[in-house]
């Protein structure tokens, strides 16, 4: 062996070691937090396949220290052997699921529709309603974010009772649309603000009307922002519990209310609760993984100017 002539000096080697330990620290923190973030979800999935002794012994890894059983899913009527049979629990679950889906989607559509128009108007035209100017109107919309739901809850309870709208989907849809509207306006104002107004000017020269330019030129450009706003509203409205618990009783009950009401009655039958919880969060996990880009875009919109 010949001695290596060119080699790193000792100072550089120390640097490399330091860099390596730095990397190690970064990755270990990242993995630690990933475990903190994912373990509850993992726990819920595995618990839904456990039986009572597995729960009590605290077995965690499927196939290694316990054999997965369809117990939890059978009680929901969603296991392979019960999926074809009649099941009242499954009916109930699907009904709540459908309610949640209808309410979340319609509320988000209303909020994005109204919010986009308002945000576009505010970013392009000068308004004057009495003493209110553009910035006041913007503030009026965004200030709704501060309003805690509990302030509206009881007046709405009484109002909806008088209007015969308690326990109806439309009642919840309107209320949910209201709660997400400020967020939509916030995101969309940012979107429209970044589109140059020369585009519309060109469109006007070509003979389009204001609404024509908005619908055919501007909206397609702002579509990613609208998707972001829509997904964010969808997540918030799907998860909403407080209003749903107060304003619905049987007909329009949503999934979170069903999950919450089962917690008490089922006691320790963890497997079925786990199955139910997991079925309730599954759509959002899918959305979160598939559309993560849009969610991050939506939430980042307000942060950076």
């Amino acid at each position, binding site marked *: 062996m010949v001695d290596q002539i060119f080699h790193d000096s000792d100072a550089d080697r120390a640097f490399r070691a330091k860099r390596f330990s730095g990397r190690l620290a970064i990755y270990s923190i990242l993995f630690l937090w*990933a475990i903190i973030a994912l373990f509850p979800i993992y726990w819920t999935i595995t618990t839904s396949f456990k039986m009572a002794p597995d729960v009590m012994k605290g077995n965690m890894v499927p196939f290694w220290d316990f054999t997965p059983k369809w117990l939890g899913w059978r009680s929901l009527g969603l296991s392979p052997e019960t999926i074809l049979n009649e099941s009242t629990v499954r009916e109930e679950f699907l009904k709540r699921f459908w309610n949640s889906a209808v309410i979340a989607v319609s509320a988000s559509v209303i909020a994005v529709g109204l919010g986009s128009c*308002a945000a576009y108007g505010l970013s*392009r035209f000068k308004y004057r309603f009495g003493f209110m100017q553009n910035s006041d109107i913007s503030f009026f919309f965004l200030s709704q974010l501060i309003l805690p739901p*509990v*302030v509206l809850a*009881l007046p709405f309870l009484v109002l909806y009772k008088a209007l015969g709208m308690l326990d109806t989907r439309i009642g919840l849809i309107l209320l949910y649309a209201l709660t997400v509207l400020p967020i939509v306006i916030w995101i969309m104002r940012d979107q429209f603000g970044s589109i140059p107004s020369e585009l519309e000017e060109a469109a006007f020269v070509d003979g389009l009307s204001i609404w024509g330019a908005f619908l055919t030129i501007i909206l397609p450009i702002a579509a990613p922002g609208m998707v972001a706003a829509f997904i964010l509203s969808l997540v918030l409205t799907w998860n909403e519990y407080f209003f749903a618990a107060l304003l619905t009783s049987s007909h329009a009950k949503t999934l979170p209310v069903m999950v919450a009401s089962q917690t008490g009655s089922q006691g320790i039958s963890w497997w079925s609760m786990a199955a139910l919880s997991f079925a309730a969060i599954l759509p959002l996990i899918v959305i979160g993984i598939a559309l993560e880009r849009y969610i991050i875009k939506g939430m980042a919109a307000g942060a950076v100017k």
Partner: protein
Amino acid sequence: MSVEGDLLHVVTADNISQRRKLTGKLIVWGSAGLMFAVAIIQMADQNGWISLNFENWRPTLYAYILWAVCLCAGQVIARGEHGKRTLFVLPATLFVISMVVFPLLFGLVIAFSDWNLASPDGRQFNGFDNMRQMWTDPFYWNAMRNMLWYSLAIIAEYTIAFGLALLLNAQIKGRKFFRVAFLLPLMLSPVAVSWMIGKSMLENRFGPIARVLREIGVQSPSFFSSPEIARLMIMLMDAWTYIPFMMIMILAGLQAIPKELHEAAEVDGANAWRRFWEVTFPLMLPVSITAILIRIIFKLKLADIIINVTSGGPGGATDSVTSFIFREYRDRSNVGYGTMLAMFYLFVIVIAMTILIKAADRWMRPRY
């Protein structure tokens, strides 16, 4: 707070005939008249002056919707191009006013009355009785104090979120995986979280966390029996859900900082620690303050987890104002008193947030 996009300046010469203007006005006022007529008829029916036996107030609602539509249409008919521009903002404004301002005014009326939905007497005006009762209600003030504690927990959440954002912004492999993994808690509904963590993982006998604690040597761990620990658990669960939210806002801010600044600081011989405190952190101040303010707003609505895990216990130690009012209604159907509590809460929030925003504004203004 305001982004002023470049405003469009459109010159329009509308020739709107006198007749068209008149038609527009007629539609608006006609539908308004119809709405008032329907409302008055219903009120008369309600008070028993005439008997038409309406089942509910739906007719008035329909008349109101008709009026709102006519108001929008009337704008275009009477004011042409200007009306079309107003049409962008008007529907949202009408929606918010009818869904917020009107119920709030109605809520003020309820707040000063004794109204128990379970009792047959109906609403009775009782002046400031609710206010007096609130003033001496130890549980309400306890809930208010808890809100202060819960809000203070945001400082810790912010620190963790900032740290995670810094790590995600570093040169790492598999960034997408970590981003998705960190984001997932935010997607989950608080109700599911309160079962997944609060009821099952934090269970005293079989829960995995109790098991780990027992391994370490904690005798019979319990999470929701002593007030302090119970409150801490609620804070932790809420933090678990919302840290991703702050993290993403801060990450967006970090990505917007130009790389040159760091390079310049590095050339000047600043080490990583000084680089953070003298370049990154000051630049992140506006984003941080926005993130914290929004987080405070969300925190003030905290209720779902508390309602489902502890329902305020032990002894009201974990109650937030919202969950307290929720139970006040659920247990006693006391609408009047509950509304008064909520209104007072709103009052406190508005004042506190105004002070906070003003202070943040002053603090962020550059001094040199």
